[in-house]
């Protein structure tokens, strides 16, 4: 690991050097009803549009490497039979400029399932291998609980990581590619004082977490509480709308559909991201549904995130980014659900649900 100091005035130049590639970063998308800025990851062509001071985005950067809908292949009927065309849907490298630690950790978790496995998915792998990541340090937001999930820092899975020290960044260099980019701008070696500033910045971040989720023995407790009443109680609130999975940076479950085109001479195989909360998700051929009740579906989402994945990889699939909590209209929040499983009762939410 190499650390360098990069003055903020050098940033436009760094951006320009990188902009031979497609850069995706946090930008302002609009404002909500209270005037709060809504951020989104979008392609950026001007450095000024980039909002490196963003709080969080309402959607993860997932759509660039795990799109909601993706054509896996197309078919064309020929006189001899049919031809198949496969495209991994990545035609240029992507630079992600300004990912927070939670989103980098989400990618690392997805890698475990989709890339570093016996049967890697080429669609994800191709995109992941053509990715350059500039991480950036953040301040906890009201919904963040990454610290409880152990994902408040990213140890790997990025190329360089920036920590804001006022008029300069502490840059953590993780790859040769990042080092090469930085050779185009002026950097200096950090002084002892800048080390202290960095440590103070991280300490400040730590002080700002307002949610703590107790994950001690969670896999065991989830096993014990499989039949707990709280699942039905949360299920009664759940809209089964799939928003939580859609905004989750690490949800990857999907369905595949083959569609014959109107001309009957061609067809397309499409992958669609799903959510285990959707009624259709556990339905099988013949119409049987393994999880017809809302509470059961919601439960399985928690079991996948906090139990199944932990048993397989010794870490949770949840990164505590809080997006699902913030976007759930029914106020179903991960910290409250986990707490209710521990205590056996669901506590009323702040919003005064009757």
């Amino acid at each position, binding site marked *: 690991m190499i650390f360098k100091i990069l003055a903020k005035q050098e940033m436009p130049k760094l951006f320009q050097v990188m902009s031979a590639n497609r850069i995706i970063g946090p930008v302002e*998308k*609009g404002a*909500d*009803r209270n005037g709060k800025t*809504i951020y*989104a990851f979008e392609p950026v062509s001007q450095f000024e549009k980039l909002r490196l001071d963003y709080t969080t985005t*309402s*959607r993860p950067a997932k*759509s660039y490497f795990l799109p*909601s*809908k993706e054509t896996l292949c197309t078919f064309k*009927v020929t006189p001899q039979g*049919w031809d198949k065309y496969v495209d991994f849907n990545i035609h240029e490298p992507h630079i992600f400029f300004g990912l927070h630690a939670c989103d980098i950790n989400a990618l690392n978790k997805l890698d475990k399932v989709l890339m570093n496995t016996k049967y890697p998915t080429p669609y994800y792998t191709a995109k992941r291998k053509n990715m350059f990541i500039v991480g950036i340090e953040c301040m906890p937001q009201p919904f963040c609980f990454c610290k409880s999930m152990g994902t408040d820092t990213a140890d790997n899975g990025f190329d360089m990581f920036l920590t804001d020290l006022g008029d300069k960044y502490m840059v953590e260099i993780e790859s040769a590619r990042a080092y090469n980019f930085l050779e185009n701008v002026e950097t200096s070696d950090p002084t002892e004082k800048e080390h202290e500033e960095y440590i103070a910045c991280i300490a400040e971040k730590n002080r700002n977490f307002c949610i703590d989720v107790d994950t001690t023995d969670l896999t065991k407790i989830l096993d014990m509480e499989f039949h707990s009443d709280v699942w039905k109680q949360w299920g*009664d*609130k*759940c*809209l*089964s*709308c*799939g*928003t939580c999975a*859609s*905004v989750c940076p690490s949800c990857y479950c999907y369905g595949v559909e083959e*569609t*014959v*085109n*109107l*001309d*009957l001479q061609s067809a397309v195989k499409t992958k669609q*991201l799903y*959510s285990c909360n*959707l*009624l*259709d998700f556990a*339905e099988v051929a013949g119409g049987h549904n393994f999880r017809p009740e*809302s509470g059961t579906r919601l439960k399985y989402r928690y079991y996948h995130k906090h139990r199944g994945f932990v048993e397989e990889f010794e870490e949770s699939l949840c990164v505590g980014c809080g997006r699902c909590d913030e*976007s759930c*209209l*029914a106020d179903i929040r991960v910290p409250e659900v986990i707490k209710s499983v521990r205590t056996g009762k669901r506590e009323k939410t702040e*919003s*005064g*649900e*009757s």
Partner: protein
Amino acid sequence: MSETPSYLGVPITRPKVAFFDFTACEGCQLQILNNEATLVDFLSLIEVVAFREAMTESSDDYDIALVEGSVTRADEVERLKTIRKNAKVLVALGSCACFGGVNQLKNRFDDQEWVKKEVYGDHPIETQRAQPLHEIVDVDMKIYGCPIKKEEVEKIVTNLVLGKSVKHPKYPVCMECKANDNICLYDLGEACLGPVTRAGCDAWCPGSRFGCWGCRGPADEANMDEMVNIMKERGFSYETMLDRLECFGGFAEFTSKLKDQMEQDKENG
């Protein structure tokens, strides 16, 4: 386009299809004619034998009847029954045919004579309670939407022709809305029935920052109690909720319950 279409070398039979309209704006039929880019392929899959909006000829010999509109007159009831008798498959096309559509809004007035006078003045006109097709005849399939989405109809017709099963999404609009990266209308302070309305429209309205009015009716699992809680918490009145939920008739089963709840809440202050 060949005269007899084939799939993987096997010739397919083009089903005889007839389009009919009852009380409606005919917008759903217009949708069928709209997609010029694929219209030729679409028409090569089926043999259209009756389509008042598009052709002069008409025949009673058909396999599939696609019926738009709700039923609002006694003669329409008889006509629909005849169509049912002739058709092997009867498809309700669009919100009016599926739920009564915008037309059924008049059903909420107790005094139907007053409605008639308000709309038609002194012109004598025969009209009765607006009914969806399934209240009168058996409906084999429903194609939802106001209007229907042409791409969805194309897919359904292709599957029908190939003998593949036809499936509607059971989940609500939110899933498609999120897939399109839209900002949630509730974040913008607007009402939206997306969380309870059946998907399939690709979040057409929310994508244009216009909250969902539920034209496709409820999703297979629509958590109406929670939907009401959500709207109440955000300051929407019962009247606003009812306006939306009653607009297309898809939520009829639920709206009467909601009206009771409204009365009860008002009594309790």
